[in-house]
């Protein structure tokens, strides 16, 4: 699983080896600072001992990873049995400063005193013309500066005695016959080159003399800012503050964020509570200002559907401000573009083509991928329903929710009669149910805001969609895992949005068939988790606590692969206590 660490402005993607594979400065339209191409640098870590260098990704290390709670840090343990060296890495982003921190704990498993050199490599393409970027060793800062006109990064390290890295190199990256500075580290030494213009990388070396069966620690910090002087100030502050202070402050920040949720889930067993908190933090670390990100072909992209899944449990936990901020951001974007949000966007806000374009020649056309807008409207209705001061949402209603609902309604009216062909996906029942729920929800909001014309129009639309969903034939298919997932999704749409009464025979039978087929899936099937969640929610809804418990036991054995997986578990566990 790809791990993400973030605060509201900076996010880093960490791979299975503890390497940074993407770094985003979310407020800037810069995309992945490491570069968007497949040959973009990965921020590697390596150890040189007994005359041998080994990078964490060279296959010789046994690596395990998990999130540390509540710092939202990724803890990576790596052991190299042949070299008798272990490395424990805690990577996180300071909750209040744009600094990516790593603690590097080096353990000498040999009985001999050894000189251990730890190498950290980093490179940036900045998505900027190569003539405008450079890397440079800054002596006064004891740091490497990677510069672009819009973002500057300072890289530095510290030992507990206050010393900094003891060797470095800056050079061309994958051009002019150069592979990258990390190649220089093969003999344990670096070239001390101090300047390179164009696409460049850098490698720094930290050295410790570690007695047998003992360990030592380094810290690494990467400070990001818009300008060199700001980045310099930040790195100076980070060095002075130190890792421990940043770690504790960040832990305290997230602990405070979690605290209200711990009161809501007081009824859960201790083991479920622990998982709940872990999944809640997993969702939070993927929640950026413009929504929730998921990993799509190695890149982080905003996924509106994942955002809906993720914001729903947050809203139920009282995190109104996160949901409101999301809609404020959507409203701002909508007033600029007059287009509904795309299902997928990259981190600069550009729509990402997912094979079914939402916009055809500048005219909005209805497609299955547009159904997420229905979900968006449903969530807005729920926000309005649960908000302590619902009148505060009037401007979002006026600028975003109302026009987008009217736009969607107009589109459906224009294509009246084509609904069955337009919505011919295997999950059409779910899509229609979601759209219906969105319109019904918005009709309630319109009523609260005394917008009677829209209220009537949207309620009529909701009823028509509800009927269409009910008319579509429903059966459970299991030819492939995907078929089963889509059948389960339709089943979920039918009961969750009230298309069919929960205790109707068709749903009772479908639940047991889906449960039976799901039991036959392999334990590592990526679809198990969501299906167990939906079945558990169904059995909770129908007061069948025995079967609900069975499904919950099954789902906690699944490992969430994405924030939307984690969010679905949160929703299910919340159903058990509310």
């Amino acid at each position, binding site marked *: 699983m790809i791990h993400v660490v973030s*605060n509201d*402005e900076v996010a880093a993607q960490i791979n299975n080896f503890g390497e940074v594979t993407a770094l985003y400065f979310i407020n800037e339209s810069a995309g992945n600072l490491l570069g968007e191409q497949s040959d973009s640098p990965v921020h590697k870590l390596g150890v040189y001992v007994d005359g041998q260098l080994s990078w964490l990704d060279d296959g010789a290390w046994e690596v395990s990873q998990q999130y540390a709670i509540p710092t939202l840090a990724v803890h990576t343990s790596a052991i190299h049995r042949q070299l008798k060296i272990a490395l424990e890495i805690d990577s996180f982003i300071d909750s*209040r*400063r*744009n600094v990516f921190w790593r603690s590097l704990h080096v353990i000498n498993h040999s009985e001999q005193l050894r000189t251990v050199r730890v190498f950290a490599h980093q490179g940036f393409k900045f998505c900027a013309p190569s003539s405008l970027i450079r890397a*440079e060793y*800054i*002596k*006064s*800062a004891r740091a490497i*500066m990677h510069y672009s006109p819009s973002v500057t990064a300072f890289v530095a390290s510290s030992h507990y005695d206050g010393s900094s890295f003891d060797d470095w190199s800056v050079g061309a990256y994958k051009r002019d016959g150069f592979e990258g500075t990390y190649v220089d580290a093969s003999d344990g030494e670096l070239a001390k080159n101090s300047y390179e213009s164009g696409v460049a990388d850098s490698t720094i070396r930290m050295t410790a003399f570690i007695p047998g069966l003992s360990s030592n620690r380094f810290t690494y910090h990467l400070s990001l*800012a818009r*300008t*060199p*002087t*700001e980045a*310099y*100030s*930040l790195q*100076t*502050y*980070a060095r*002075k*503050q130190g890792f421990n202070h940043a770690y504790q402050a960040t832990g305290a920040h997230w602990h405070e964020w979690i605290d209200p949720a711990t009161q809501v889930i007081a009824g859960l067993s201790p083991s479920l509570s622990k998982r709940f908190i872990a999944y809640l933090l997993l969702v939070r670390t993927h929640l950026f200002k413009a929504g929730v990100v998921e990993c799509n072909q190695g890149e982080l992209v905003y996924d509106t559907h994942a955002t809906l899944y993720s914001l729903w449990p947050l809203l139920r936990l009282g995190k109104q401000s996160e949901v409101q901020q999301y809609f404020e951001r959507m409203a701002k974007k909508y007033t600029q573009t007059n287009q509904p949000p795309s299902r997928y966007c990259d981190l600069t806000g550009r729509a990402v083509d997912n094979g079914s374009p939402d916009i055809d020649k500048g005219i909005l056309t209805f497609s299955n991928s547009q159904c997420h807008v229905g979900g968006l409207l449903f969530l807005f209705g729920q926000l309005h329903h649960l908000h302590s*001061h619902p*009148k*505060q949402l009037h*401007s979002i209603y006026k600028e975003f929710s109302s026009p987008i609902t009217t736009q969607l309604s107009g589109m459906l009216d224009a294509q009246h009669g084509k609904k069955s062909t337009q919505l011919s996906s295997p999950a059409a029942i779910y899509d229609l149910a979601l759209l219906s729920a969105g319109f019904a929800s918005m009709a309630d909001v319109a009523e609260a805001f005394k917008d009677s014309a829209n209220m009537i129009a949207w309620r009529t639309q909701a009823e028509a969609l509800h009927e269409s969903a009910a008319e579509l034939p429903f059966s459970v298919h299991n030819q492939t895992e995907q078929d089963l997932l889509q059948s389960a999704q339709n089943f979920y749409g039918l009961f969750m949005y009230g298309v069919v009464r929960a205790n109707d025979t068709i749903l009772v039978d479908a639940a047991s068939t889906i449960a039976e087929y799901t039991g036959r899936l392999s334990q590592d099937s990526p679809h198990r988790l969501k299906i167990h969640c939906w079945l558990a929610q169904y059995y909770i809804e129908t007061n069948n606590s025995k079967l609900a418990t069975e499904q919950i036991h099954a789902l906690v054995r699944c490992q969430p692969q994405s924030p939307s997986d984690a969010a679905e578990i949160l929703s299910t566990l919340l159903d058990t206590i509310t």
Partner: protein
Amino acid sequence: MTKHSTKTTKLLKSLAPKSMTRHYKTQKIVQSIADEYGMVYFGRADYQHEETALVRGLTASRSNSDNHYCIGTYGGYDVVFVDRETTQHPPHTQPVRHALHMVQVDIKSPEGLPHIFLGPKNHNEQWYERVFAMLATRHSLQLGLSHAYPNQFTLNYAVYGTQTQQPYIEQLITPDTALTIANHYFPLYIELFDDHVIVYSDAPKLTAELLEVLLKNAVWLASTLDATYNSLRQRIG
């Protein structure tokens, strides 16, 4: 009262002898200071054909009424003065009207400044957040991460900015600069925005002394920030 009659009342008020006398008195003061400092007096700023306001920052809006606008150079810096009437629309409350005397100075540092607002503490925090809606996205910062700040400053001024930029803000607003602000600026507002330093006052009446203080203080702060920036930049090389 209808909208029409409200407009009429406003128009009549602005044409009232008392209001007109005040306008001409202010014009006289601004013109005399403009003459003394080699600035050019233009009178009313017309935003019909302008892209952006002459003086920017939190109070900038195309609906502002900017008067007695004059520009010039002082102490080697480009300066602008305006008398601004602005209506802020805080969310969920009634609009608030303000009359402000403002001096804006362009700094020379090429990188621009983080957006910082220094508000005298004779208004409480809620007042700022209500009046300056933009401050809702800024935090009231407790300075002191990198240096100790003089009590006179922390008692008299609230500093608004983003938490992520606080280390940089503390490098720019050093304790010495803060002490000078505490001793010589209170109760003026200070805003750093992009490449501008804006110093302003909400005093009911503009006097020649106040205008000179605004002008000199704004230029002093701009030159101090430029010097601080240059010293930081030299450390990077």
